[in-house]
């Protein structure tokens, strides 16, 4: 782990150091909010392959990684981007053409699996999914699981309540812990040491960070340590969980970052259009991901006016009256 007081590095350095072919990755955010998109685009530019990805409901970030061919295995609860893609298009195509192996859980189950990893437990119990195909149908075969030491032998299991009817529960579902090789999240504020503050909903980012072996934080603002320590009640990530701090303004673009900017409906709609067709999607990647060197160049290419349109209103934290058709 990185015990330095200054963990600030460039995005290429952080990805090069902590994300490699075949590693087990989890990214923060939810559907179209606070996905670490700058990091996702850098992973695509670095042509990192054979990733095993864990997600609860990360929509846009996962779909672009899948579409770019970086992912071979995905454990997930929900692959959608809200109104912009009820089912993520590249995810859907990859599953239908058999190029992506998927293991389905519920959102709570994926959250509990990260929580178990964060708590240092092999599993967490829940009462969710009893009687469903989430229990009966496994995406990863038993041989596939038993041959891979980085996978638990069982997708999940059902047990009787060993305390009788205590809690009025006769049966529990146990879901196995996740300890990703690396978790990447995007936050509003971080200091050079790694203490981080998320504004608005935290989703499962805190659990994803604490479950991981290595952690990359990308942040809108790199701030002085004292400015975070004046109000420690509002910080969620202790610095000793963090390995890399990367300042990236608009690092969640085109997804939203509460109190900073909204999602970009134009980008997300164009993306969905492009994703429908192989050639158009390859052109999208060439133009918006591979064709630029970093997030700054992406923003320049998209255009300053679009950033102005999605700028968050200070009262509400989002872009009031934004044209979202």
């Amino acid at each position, binding site marked *: 782990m990185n015990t330095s007081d200054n963990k600030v590095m460039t995005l290429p350095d952080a990805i090069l150091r902590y994300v490699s072919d075949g590693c087990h990755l989890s990214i923060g955010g939810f559907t179209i909010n606070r996905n670490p998109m700058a990091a996702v685009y850098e992973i695509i530019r670095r042509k990192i392959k054979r990733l095993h990805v864990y997600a609860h409901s990360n929509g846009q970030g996962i779909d672009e990684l899948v579409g770019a061919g970086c992912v071979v295995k995905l454990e997930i609860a*929900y692959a959608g981007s*809200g109104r912009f893609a009820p089912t993520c298009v590249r995810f859907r195509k990859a599953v239908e053409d058999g190029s992506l192996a998927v293991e*389905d859980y*519920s*959102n709570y189950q994926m959250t509990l699996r990260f929580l178990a990893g964060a708590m240092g437990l092999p599993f967490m119990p829940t009462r*969710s999914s009893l009687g469903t195909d989430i229990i009966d149908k496994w995406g990863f075969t038993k041989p596939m699981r038993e041959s891979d030491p980085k996978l638990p032998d069982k997708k999940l299991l059902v047990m009787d309540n060993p305390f009788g009817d205590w809690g009025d529960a006769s049966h529990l579902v146990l879901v196995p812990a996740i300890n990703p090789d690396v978790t990447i999240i995007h936050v509003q504020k971080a200091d050079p040491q790694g203490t981080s503050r998320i504004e608005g*909903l935290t989703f499962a980012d805190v659990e994803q960070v604490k479950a991981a072996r290595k952690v990359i934080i990308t942040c809108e603002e790199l701030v002085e340590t004292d400015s975070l320590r004046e109000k420690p009640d509002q910080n969620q990530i202790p610095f000793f969980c963090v390995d890399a701090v990367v300042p990236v303004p608009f690092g969640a673009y085109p997804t939203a970052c509460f109190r900073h900017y909204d999602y970009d409906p134009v980008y997300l709609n164009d993306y969905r259009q492009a994703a429908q067709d192989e050639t158009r999607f390859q052109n999208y990647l060439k133009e918006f991901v591979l064709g630029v060197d970093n997030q700054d160049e992406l923003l320049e290419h998209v255009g300053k006016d679009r950033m102005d349109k999605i700028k968050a209103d200070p009262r509400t934290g989002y872009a009031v009256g934004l044209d979202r058709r």
Partner: protein
Amino acid sequence: MAEYSPREMMAIAAARQIKDGDIVFCGTGISMLAAMAAKHISAPNSIIFFETGAIDSRLEEVPLAVADSRVMHWTSVNGSLADAFATMQNRHTGKRVVGIMGAAQIDRFGNLNSTVIGDYHRPKVRFSGSGGACDVASFVGRTIIFMQHEKRKFVKQVDYLTSPGWLDGPGQREKIGLPGGGPSVVITNMAIMGFDSDSKEMFLKGCFPGISAQGVQACM
């Protein structure tokens, strides 16, 4: 000629199922419209609640996703996924939650599929997957289900059971250990269906104006 769309009728029909004090689990789209309608018309003290952790959001604009920043504004608490689902699994608060959900397929016991059409390992069509739907259907006091009334969506058996309804019938939820109350109504663009208290099978409760029972039958 009605001066409302079927979609508006569906939202209002669902809104009428919501009482003051209910904690309303919302997805996006029509389920959010239903919750907003209830809060603004019939149940001002109902509580809009999202799986992302937002509690009693002040929705000045319609969110386009449950993680839309619009759900984070002026809430009672901005929590996490872990908090939100614990509220639904909780033995005291879970009973007060009404879940509103949709699906690609539904069977006569209200079991839902939002994962695949065809074989799970070689799907004809892949959908988003459960998200929080399976959790909500497992945990909460009662669920309201939205469906488009089409033959292909009302099936004898769902291709993948994503979210538990009444499973195979009476007593099955209790037997297998599910805490929640199960589905109460199905609202479509044509009619409202309930579930028989004994058989737990779906039955036609009523048709919207201009729709006949035969018309409904023809679409399922």
